[in-house]
């Protein structure tokens, strides 16, 4: 229809132009525009029908155009009227598509805004940590420089040597306690190991003589400004510290083999003192290494007692020096640092302000995930970015994440002060693991990702504490026997006589450790993680070896187990 009329108006360009302008300004569906064009063309033809000449037709066309009025206004009126003509279903579809389009546009804009969020770094938590962790002492009283020097000098037995000499990897096994009884090749290798670490051990001992230990936390010198947050703090040499403690243990055993008991005990004391230094540091991983050293010292001292005969004076000195290691009280696991790490992470991972206090930033979330799961190349990251954006959108906002995270840490700080027995019978405290388990892994993926496994953390701490107390008690019992010729009937006699300051408390029963005389000997044990007195029967591991802190028996401190 439109084509037919278009052809008829070919000689009247003004009319054709006018119709084209109206249609182009109508900006409506093609079919409707075609109908309107045909109808307007037909109108012009009818108007021009009576004109004889081209000139007359042109003149008349201009008059008709003038009669139609403003092109833009006409187009608007036509479009409006035609829109009203469309059927309801078409209107519904059009409105739905418009709404969907609008929503998609809003979503795109929101996604762009969301993805380009930037964190606001308002608190320098690293500086705050360094301020908080530094005691008011001069630098020369700090053990850490000596420990670090010792670690840098330390030489680890290589893998071949470890495979050839199992004593290196199973240092606590009773069969390796008697150095003189080891095969010659083992003795030579161990002696060489001790020799090459002579200088490192000297620094380790120097560290043990210092009254305190603190660390200036910082970053890898090659770390970019973007990566300077607590998550990236480096804590070097922890493995070497454990290696140095092993050097001390071997030195102790070699000294016993030579008959140098005082030297042997001094080596154990050096380990115990440095254990305490590390336990006072801020990071959980440092404290755990400290606890491992503490455990090593408290295994080795009773072992030494069993294999040698000490005088009452030696026992008294050793007990006094060992008690002095924790004169300020046995340290409670310090989780404040980890709480600060969490706060620092939040300020790097979330925007600051707006709905819910800010939202998770996908790019930062990718950075931190990269540290743990290694997202590899940029391509892979680009591929995962939409998923990260979606995950960030469903994640809890900043305020809620902070609130729940703080609750987890606060509850855990409370728990760290409770013995395992108190924790078992608690009513009003939930563990971090309980809270985490109850949280949606999508909404709180950050917390699931970064909160450390607190499970049994405080139990490890209390194990260290009771091991230390048990060693002091064993020394007191040995003193009593050295003075009176037999062991006391009860531990209470030790405290009454001033040989022991306090009764050793079992954290798994909240009662004193169980002590019984057994003929010419005695037994001292904790009921252990099963909270049940198994009559002093030690727990056994999968291979039948006797082990401490198993839930199928008691943890026996004395007599020292002969097999593991």
């Amino acid at each position, binding site marked *: 229809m439109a084509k037919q009329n278009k052809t008829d108006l070919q000689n009247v360009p003004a009319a054709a132009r006018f119709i084209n302008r109206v249609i182009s300004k109508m900006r409506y569906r093609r079919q409707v525009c075609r109908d309107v064009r045909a*109808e307007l063309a*037909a109108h012009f033809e009818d108007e021009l029908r009576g004109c004889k000449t081209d000139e007359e037709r042109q003149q008349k066309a201009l008059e008709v155009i003038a009669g139609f009025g403003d092109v833009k206004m*006409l187009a608007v009126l036509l479009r409006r009227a035609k829109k009203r003509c469309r059927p309801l279903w078409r209107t519904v579809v059009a409105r739905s598509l418009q709404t969907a389009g609008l929503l998609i546009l809003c979503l795109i804009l929101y996604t762009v805004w969301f993805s380009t969020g930037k964190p606001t770094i308002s608190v320098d938590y690293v500086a705050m940590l360094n301020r908080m962790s530094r005691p008011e002492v001069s630098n020369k009283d700090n053990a850490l420089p000596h420990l670090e020097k010792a670690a840098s000098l330390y030489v680890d037995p290589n893998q071949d040597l470890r495979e050839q000499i199992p004593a290196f990897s199973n240092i606590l096994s009773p069969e390796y306690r008697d150095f003189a009884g080891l095969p010659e090749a083992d003795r030579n290798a161990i002696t060489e190991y001790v020799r090459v670490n002579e200088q490192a051990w000297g620094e380790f001992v120097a560290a043990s003589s210092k009254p305190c230990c603190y660390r200036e936390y910082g970053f890898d010198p090659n770390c970019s400004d973007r990566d300077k947050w607590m998550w990236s703090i480096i804590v070097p040499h922890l493995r070497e510290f454990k290696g140095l403690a092993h050097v001390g243990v071997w030195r102790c055993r070699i000294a016993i083999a030579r008959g140098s008991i005082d030297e042997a005990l001094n080596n154990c004391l050096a380990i115990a003192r440095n254990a305490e230094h590390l336990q006072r540091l801020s990071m959980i991983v440092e404290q755990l290494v400290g606890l491992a050293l503490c455990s090593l010292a408290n295994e080795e001292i009773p072992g030494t007692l069993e294999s040698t005969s000490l005088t009452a004076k030696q026992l008294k000195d050793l007990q006094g020096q060992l008690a002095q290691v924790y004169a300020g009280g046995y340290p409670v696991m310090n989780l404040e640092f980890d709480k600060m790490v969490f706060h620092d992470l939040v300020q790097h991972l979330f925007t600051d302000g707006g709905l819910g206090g800010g939202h998770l930033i996908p790019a930062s979330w990718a950075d931190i995930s990269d540290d743990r799961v290694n997202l590899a190349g940029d391509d892979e990251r680009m591929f995962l970015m939409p998923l990260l954006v979606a995950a960030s959108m469903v994640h809890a906002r900043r305020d809620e994440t902070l609130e729940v995270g703080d609750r987890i840490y606060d509850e855990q700080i409370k728990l760290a002060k409770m013995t395992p027995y108190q924790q078992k019978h608690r009513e009003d405290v939930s563990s971090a693991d309980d809270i985490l388990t109850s949280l949606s892994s999508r909404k709180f993926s950050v917390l699931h990702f970064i909160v450390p496994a607190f499970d049994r953390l405080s139990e490890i701490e209390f194990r260290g504490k009771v091991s230390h107390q048990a060693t002091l008690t064993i020394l007191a019992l040995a003193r009593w026997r050295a003075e009176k010729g037999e062991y006391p009937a009860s531990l209470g006699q030790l405290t009454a006589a001033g040989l022991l300051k306090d009764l050793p408390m079992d954290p798994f029963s909240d009662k004193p450790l169980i002590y019984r005389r057994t003929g010419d000997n005695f037994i001292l044990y904790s009921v252990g993680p099963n909270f049940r007195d198994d009559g002093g029967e030690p727990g056994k591991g999968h291979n039948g070896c006797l082990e401490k802190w198993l839930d199928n028996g008691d943890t026996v401190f004395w007599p020292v187990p002969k097999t593991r």
Partner: protein
Amino acid sequence: MKFESQLLKGIAPVVVLEILSRGQMYGYELSEAIEERSAEVLTLGKGTLYPLLYNLEAKKLIRGRWEQAESGRKRRYYSITGKGKDELARQKAQLKELTTGLNLIFSGALAPA
């Protein structure tokens, strides 16, 4: 005398419905018919005519369809619907009342000579 456009706009739909109630017409024919039957007193501007037709069609008062004219050309013919007839009757009744009222005010001066 030509009517003021605003005044005409108010009664244009009734006029179109009245003309179409006498038979189907296409746009140009309709505009000619209005002028002719009102002795050129009423003139519907071309810019008003087609939007008005489409609006009446949207309200389902008239129906438009393409037909072949006697001359062989295709034209869009408009005819009044049942709903349009009802609306026309209602509007005419209102106009009658309006005229009566105006006559009373103007003491019969508005009555046709």
